[in-house]
């Protein structure tokens, strides 16, 4: 298909933090594509590199982090090849991001309306304040908040309202890609649900793609059409979410572990199995496959060599066990 030029194309990207003990890789050799109109989930434990990857895609890496290898393309354009002003104009027009901490993403001393208008006028300088103000009302309506709240300051709004306005700002310029970095983590379950429903609704109308970052496996499985699983800075599996199950023959052992940790509402037995051990220290990764100390299926190969990427059906998996599988092809 011609329209299948990816909106987001991450190719072999590695991102390193500069530390006193030298560079530490928070994302290693990551490849990920997001196609038009698609919702892709990115899940992993805290510290697995999800947010670093998101900031890397936005080219917003701070605190000594930088892209050390690979390419990140949005709509075919290399984000890291742009000049400063070019990047300023490109970012948000074609890709935007909803931050994890909606509570702190809004400037406490400006009204919501001013912050929306700032977004619009930074990209469309010819737009009058009146036009921008009308557009702000439209956006408020889109996230289902009464337009009268536009004149409020962030501290006068609830957490859910603030997050809705952050989403309104993210879609203000109708970008092709919206990255959502745990957009509902700080909110209670009910608000979480209504915001997710709204996001999906708006996404259907506007047709942008979403890279949805979360550590909530069941939430992502329901929300996204494809899921990328991140472990210790690597994407260990990408699968269609409809195909996910606890079948260890079809999925990465880590994915299976996550799956088995979800409580099943209709299941008879209520014992949940967790994944033994804890996430590795990325400054001091285990040899071979980084997951091997926690993997019940690990053998000597896993301890010594890093697995390659294997395609199996509609999944791409980084695991030695799939080398010998029938039907698996080397990526």
């Amino acid at each position, binding site marked *: 298909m011609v329209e299948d030029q990816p909106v987001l194309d991450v190719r072999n990207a590695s991102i390193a933090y500069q530390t006193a003990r030298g560079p530490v890789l928070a994302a290693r050799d990551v490849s990920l594509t997001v196609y038009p109109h698609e919702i892709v989930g990115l899940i992993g434990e805290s510290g697995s590199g999800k947010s670093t990857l998101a900031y890397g895609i*936005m080219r*917003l890496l*701070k605190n000594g982090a930088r892209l050390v290898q690979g390419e990140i393309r949005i709509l075919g354009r290399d984000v890291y090849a742009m000049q400063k002003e070019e990047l*300023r*104009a490109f*970012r*948000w*027009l074609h890709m*935007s*991001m909803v*931050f994890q*901490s909606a509570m*702190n*993403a*809004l*400037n*406490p*001393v*400006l*009204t919501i309306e001013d*912050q929306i208008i*700032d*977004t619009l006028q*930074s*990209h469309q300088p010819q737009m009058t304040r009146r036009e921008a103000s009308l557009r702000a009302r439209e956006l408020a309506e889109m996230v289902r908040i009464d337009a009268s709240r536009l004149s409020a*300051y962030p*501290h*006068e709004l609830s957490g859910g309202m603030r997050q809705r306005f*952050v989403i309104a*700002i993210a879609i*203000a310029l109708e970008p092709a890609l919206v990255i959502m970095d745990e957009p509902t983590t700080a909110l209670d379950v009910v608000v979480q649900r209504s915001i997710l429903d709204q996001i999906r609704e708006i996404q259907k109308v506007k047709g942008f793609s979403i890279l949805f970052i979360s550590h909530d496996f069941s939430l992502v499985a329901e929300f996204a059409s494809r899921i990328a699983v991140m472990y210790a800075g690597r994407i260990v599996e990408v699968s269609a979410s409809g195909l996910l199950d606890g079948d260890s023959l079809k999925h990465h052992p880590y994915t299976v572990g996550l799956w088995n940790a979800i409580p099943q509402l209709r299941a008879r037995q209520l014992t949940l199995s967790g994944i033994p051990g804890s996430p590795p220290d990325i400054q001091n990764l285990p040899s071979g496959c980084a997951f091997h100390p926690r993997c019940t299926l690990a053998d000597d190969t896993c301890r010594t060599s890093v697995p390659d990427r294997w395609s199996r059906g509609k999944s791409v998996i980084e695991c030695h066990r799939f080398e010998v599988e029938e039907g698996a092809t080397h990526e």
Partner: protein
Amino acid sequence: MRYFVQRLGFLLLSLWAAITINFVLPRFMPGNPAEAMIARYQGRLSPMVLHSLEIEFGISNQPLWVQYGAYLQNLAHGNFGLSITYYPVPVIQIIANSLPWTLGLAGTATVISSVLGVVLGIIAAWRRGGKLDTVLPLITMFTTALPYQWLGLLILYVFGYLLGWFPTAHAYTATLTPSLTPPFIGNVLVHAILPASTIVITAVGGWLLGMRNNMINTLGEDYVVFAEAKGVKDRRLMFMYAARNAILPSLTGFGMALGFVVGGSVLVETIFSYPGVGYQLVAAVQNEDYPLMQGLFLIIAVSVLLANFIVEMLYGRVDPRVRRGGARA
């Protein structure tokens, strides 16, 4: 509006407290101005003169509340009593003559040093790690550590005495009559440069360092990164998103500094023989001039309160959370 009324109420209440303390304190002290006057003339005054002096200074043996009432009435009419040092000049006139000089010198110098320091602090933080940010904090750390009176004397010696570029004392050349003509204003400015530089040089560093550090913290806030991401241009990002949030602690400091302008310029005015409030305060203390001291203390207290009120109004303008009820989590 509610905020304004609240703050105004607080201002009036503290004004009243200051005025009352100013009334009570001297009455706890032994002796009175008339006795001090007698002492100055070493007993060469007769009891009759003493009595007339007591009347003139408003000393009476009436109950305290009657005295308090009379005191408040006098204040309302601007009657602060007579100075002993400059007898029989009214205290209010001495204050009226010295306050403009202090406000003009220390007030202007404080405004200059804080604005300069804050702006440089913003720029240094914005270009963190750049040349400006490496050099400025180092220099200002040095100038901030300089003792203020020592620097004043040094400047006076070098530029006033050795080089003779600037006059060494007073607010204007004694042979001129004060007027609003360019030559006189020029004369005043030339006289103010050395004392003002002393204040600015020693004060600017504190403003710069404080603002720079706040600004660096604020630049790491999510709302600044978010604004950068959404494409807000540098200048607006720097001032409306970062600096406006980072400036709040500096604003509090500014209020305190403004309040201390009137009372805190004693050293500079003494070194440069500048005829301001500080200079008069030293004269009043040396001459046991209670009415003058009392009047000056009242003016100092009132100016601290007024300065705080002004800053609270500014604060309300800059930070909506102050104006419209407290911040919710």
